[in-house]
């Protein structure tokens, strides 16, 4: 046996296997007639049919698909405007880079026309033609 103390300081002899000793004790009680009345009281509260409650859907969950759709459309709209804006800059001839490669030529239309005129002159100008031949010979 060992000794234990209550909070009031009383010495109690507490045996090992104490848990078993408590099996016969019942410190909890219920109001009189509680179990006799419980079934009736519960059945009075029971809804008419056994229907599972529908899952509660929050407002956010209900509008969520629409929000996603709106976000997709907004994204497409922005993309469209960005692409449009970029293409517009290349047409209006702001700061333009003229690329010499044949596959990715970005050529300003005015400068293009000038260049074609120049080339035409070159080919019809005899001096220019002889210059070209001299160049080729060398």
């Amino acid at each position, binding site marked *: 046996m*060992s*000794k*234990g*103390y*209550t*909070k*009031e300081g*009383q010495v*109690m002899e*507490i045996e*090992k*296997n*104490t*848990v078993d000793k*408590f*099996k016969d*004790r019942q*410190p*909890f*009680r*219920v*109001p009189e007639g*509680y*179990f006799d009345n*419980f*079934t009736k009281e*519960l*059945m009075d*509260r*029971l*809804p008419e*049919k*056994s*229907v*599972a*409650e529908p899952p509660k859907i929050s407002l956010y969950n209900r509008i969520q698909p629409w929000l996603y759709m709106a976000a997709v459309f907004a994204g497409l709209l922005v993309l469209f405007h960005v692409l449009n804006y970029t293409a517009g800059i290349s047409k209006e001839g702001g700061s333009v880079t003229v690329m010499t490669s044949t596959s990715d030529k970005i050529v300003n239309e005015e400068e293009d026309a000038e260049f074609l005129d120049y080339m035409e002159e070159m080919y019809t100008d005899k001096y220019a033609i002889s210059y070209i031949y001299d160049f080729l010979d060398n």
Partner: protein
Amino acid sequence: MQQYIEEDVVKRLRDSETQRDAFAQVVAAYSEKLYWQIRKMVLDHEDTNDILQNTFLKAWANLDHFRGEAKLSTWMYKIAVNESITFLNKQRAQQHVPLDDTDIYLLQTLQADDYFDGDAIDEKFQEAILRLPEKQRLVFTMKYKDELKYEEMSEILGTSVGALKASYHHAVKKIEAFLTSDV
């Protein structure tokens, strides 16, 4: 009173004509057992009453989900245990209880309960149980006084019989150590 035969009751629960009557039999058969299981966890009578009612209301609302694969008692106990744990979690959150996985804060509830007639030693015993981690406390309260067999507890809690036996054994040791210590 009609004799309670589970097979017959389950059959009548599936028929909408006899369902309500059969459910009344279920309530009468299980209310006291479930009450004490809940009470051992939450301690206060009024709280226990609320949880017990919710347990049966939930069972009634979800009768269609009872497939009959497990015993009706197992199913009812599962609902009762879940409702008790949900209640304790909510109470802990509301009272800002430190997260140490014990329910020692319930000692105050016990001391204030009009339907607790225990003396100092009974209070000390309850305190020892409250100092167990929640899952272990659940195992102890379910097994103590041979309320439930390990096999049924295993189905209710989803834990192996071996683990439950070990948990119960350790719970008993901890309680005895607390009771024999100078506190």
